C-alpha cells in the first residue's frame, strides 16, 4: 500500500490597519451602525471613482517585506467580475497578473526541523460588504440583508506555494504569519471579527512522486484549530478514497466545525471565469526603490531575529525565546522587565508562567496587563533579595493583579516579609523539634527524607514566611549536633 504525501497550500486574506478604506475616505472602524460608513465609491454608485490609499500600499509592502518577498516596482489593478449582492460594483478591484509582492518565503520550526514555506504572492485588493442571512442558514433563509460598512476595506491576499506538508505545519504557518503581521502592525489578525481569513487547498500524492494529485479547496475555516482539524479530516478522507482506488473530485468543500467534517459545496455553474481585465480607472501602481527602502528601514525587529537575540543576549533556552517572541507586546513586556531585574531567566519564568496564566484566565492580552513590567520587576527584586519566598511571591502577584498595588506595599501591609534572621528562625525551629520527636529521631537514624517534613512544619509554623533554605540549614545543624 502506498505511503501518501500531503500537499497543502493556503490563501490568506488579512484586513489592513488603515484608518480609511482602500479607495475612499470612509472609516474602517468595526461595528458601526449598518450602512453608516459608506459613500458613493464603496457602495459602487455609478460614476464614483477609486483613489488609492497610500497607507494601504505601504502596509501591503510591509507585509511583503516581512514575508521576504520581492516588491514589484510596477503592479496592476484588475477587475475580478462576479455577481453577488455584497459586491457593489459586481467586480472586485484586485491584482491578477502583476501583484505588488511576489516570491517570498517564511521559515518555520516544526519540532527541531526547519521548514521553508514559499510565498507565491501578496497582493492588494478591496473587501466586500457583509450579508446577514435571515434564518438559520444561507439555505433556509428567505432573504438576506446587506451592510456595506466593510465594503472597500483594504485587504492583502497572501498565497503560499504548495509547500506545506501536514495539517500541523499549516497551523504553525498561520501562527507564524499572524505573528509577522502583528509585529509589523499590518493587520490585527482577528479571526473572530473576520479580519483574518484562510482557505486551504489540499491534495495527496504517493510518496516520491513529483506530480500533484487532485486538490480540494476547503472554506469556512474560522480558527487556526479549525484549519488543522479540517486539513486532518480532509487528508484522511482523501487517503481513504485513494487507497480504495476511488477518485478525489476537484471541488470546494465546506468545513463544518460542529460535525468535524468537510462537505462538498456543489456549485451549479461551471468553474467560475472571473473575466479579469485591467481596471481602466487605475493606472499601474509605481513603487520606487526609495519608498521600499524607507519602509524596510522602519520595519520593527521581526520575530526570528528577536528570538535569536533573546537566546544570545539573555542566555534564554530556545523554548523560552520562542514563547516570548510569539507576540511583539509579550517580547516588549519581557524586555522592559529585564531592564528592572537583571536575571532574564527569572523574568522569563514569571512572565511565561504566572503572568500569562493569570491573563489567560481573565481573557486579557499582555498589552492590557494590570501589572506593568516595572511592577513585576519590583516583585522579582524582592525574591532576589530574599525578602519573599517564591511561594509567597505568587500570592503577592495575585494581590497585585487584584489591587494594582506594588509588591512592596502588599508585602508590608500583609506582613509577608520572609523570616531569614537566625534568632527568629531558631525559636520556631526549636518549637518544631520539641513537638516532633518521631521525625527527629528518624532523621537522626539516617532517614534524611524526614528533613523535608520538618522544614514543612517550620513553614507552617511561620505561616510560610520562613526562608525555607535557611530553615533547612539550621535544622540540619541542630539535629546533627
Amino acid at each position, binding site marked *: 500500500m502506498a505511503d501518501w504525501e500531503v500537499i497543502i497550500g493556503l490563501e490568506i486574506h488579512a484586513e489592513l490597519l*488603515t*484608518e*480609511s478604506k482602500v479607495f*475612499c*475616505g*470612509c*472609516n474602517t472602524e468595526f461595528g458601526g*451602525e*449598518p*450602512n*453608516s*460608513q*459608506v*459613500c*458613493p465609491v464603496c*457602495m459602487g454608485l455609478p460614476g464614483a471613482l477609486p*483613489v*488609492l*490609499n*497610500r*497607507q*494601504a*500600499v505601504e502596509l501591503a509592502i510591509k507585509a511583503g517585506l516581512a514575508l521576504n518577498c520581492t516588491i514589484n516596482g510596477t503592479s496592476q489593478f484588475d477587475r475580478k467580475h462576479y*455577481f*453577488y*449582492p455584497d459586491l457593489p460594483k459586481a467586480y472586485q478591484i484586485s491584482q491578477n497578473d502583476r501583484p505588488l509582492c511576489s516570491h517570498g518565503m517564511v521559515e518555520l520550526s516544526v519540532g527541531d526541523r526547519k521548514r521553508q514555506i514559499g510565498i507565491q504572492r501578496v497582493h492588494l485588493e478591496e473587501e466586500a460588504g457583509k*450579508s*446577514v*442571512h435571515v434564518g438559520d442558514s*444561507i*439555505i433556509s*433563509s*428567505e*432573504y*438576506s*440583508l*446587506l*451592510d*456595506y460598512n466593510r465594503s472597500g476595506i483594504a485587504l492583502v491576499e497572501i498565497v503560499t506555494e504548495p509547500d506545506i506538508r501536514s495539517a500541523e505545519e499549516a497551523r504553525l504557518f498561520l501562527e507564524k504569519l499572524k505573528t509577522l503581521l502583528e509585529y509589523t502592525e499590518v493587520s490585527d489578525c482577528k479571526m473572530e471579527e473576520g479580519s483574518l481569513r484562510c482557505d486551504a487547498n489540499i491534495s495527496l500524492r504517493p510518496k516520491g512522486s513529483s506530480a500533484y494529485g487532485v486538490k480540494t479547496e476547503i472554506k469556512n475555516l474560522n480558527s487556526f484549530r479549525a484549519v488543522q482539524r479540517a486539513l486532518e479530516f480532509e487528508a484522511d478522507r482523501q487517503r481513504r478514497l485513494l487507497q480504495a482506488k476511488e477518485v478525489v473530485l476537484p471541488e*470546494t468543500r*465546506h468545513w463544518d466545525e460542529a460535525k468535524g*467534517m468537510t*462537505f*462538498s*459545496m*456543489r*456549485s*451549479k*455553474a461551471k468553474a467560475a*471565469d472571473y*473575466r479579469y481585465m*485591467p481596471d*481602466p480607472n*487605475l*493606472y*499601474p*501602481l*509605481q513603487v520606487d526603490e526609495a519608498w521600499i527602502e524607507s519602509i524596510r528601514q522602519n520595519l520593527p525587529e521581526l520575530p526570528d531575529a528577536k528570538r535569536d537575540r533573546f537566546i544570545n543576549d539573555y542566555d534564554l533556552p530556545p523554548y523560552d525565546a520562542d514563547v516570548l517572541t510569539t507576540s511583539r507586546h509579550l517580547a516588549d513586556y519581557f524586555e522592559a522587565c529585564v531592564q528592572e531585574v537583571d536575571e532574564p531567566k527569572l523574568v522569563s519564568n514569571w512572565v511565561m508562567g504566572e503572568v500569562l496564566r493569570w491573563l489567560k484566565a481573565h481573557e486579557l492580552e499582555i498589552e492590557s496587563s494590570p501589572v506593568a513590567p516595572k511592577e513585576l520587576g519590583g516583585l522579582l527584586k524582592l525574591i532576589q533579595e530574599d525578602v519573599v519566598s517564591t511561594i509567597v511571591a505568587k500570592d503577592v502577584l495575585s494581590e497585585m493583579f487584584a489591587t494594582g498595588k506594588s509588591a512592596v506595599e502588599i508585602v508590608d501591609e500583609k506582613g509577608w516579609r520572609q523570616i531569614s534572621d537566625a534568632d527568629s528562625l531558631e525559636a520556631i525551629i526549636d518549637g518544631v523539634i520539641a513537638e516532633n520527636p518521631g521525625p527527629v529521631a528518624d532523621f537522626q537514624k539516617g532517614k534524611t527524607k524526614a528533613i523535608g517534613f520538618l522544614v514543612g512544619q517550620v513553614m507552617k509554623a511561620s505561616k510560610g514566611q520562613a526562608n525555607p533554605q535557611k530553615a533547612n540549614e539550621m535544622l540540619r545543624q541542630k539535629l546533627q549536633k
Partner: protein
Amino acid sequence: MELSLKEMEELALIARLYLTEEEKKILPQQISSILDMVHSLETVDTEDVEPTIYPITGSGVLREDEILPSLAVKDALANGPDIVDGYFRVPRIIEEEYES
C-alpha cells in the same frame, strides 16, 4: 465565430441578463457579426506591441489615509429598492448546495 443560441444563453446567464424571445431570435447573429470584426484586425502586425489600456500615459495618484465624511445613512439607503432596518434586502441567495 457563429454564436449558437445555447452559447448566447450561457453568456446571458454569466452577465445576469434576462432576454426576451424576440432578443433571443436576433441577438446571436448580431453578436457574431460584431465579434467577427476582430478578423479585420488580423492583418495588423501587433508582434511586440504593448496593448493600450489607458489613452494617455499617466501615473496613479495616491490619497493620504484620512477619514472623510461618509454619506448620511438615509442618503445611502435612499435609492435602495428594498430597505429593511437600515439594510438593503435581497431575496435569498442560492449559490451553493451542501452535500456530504
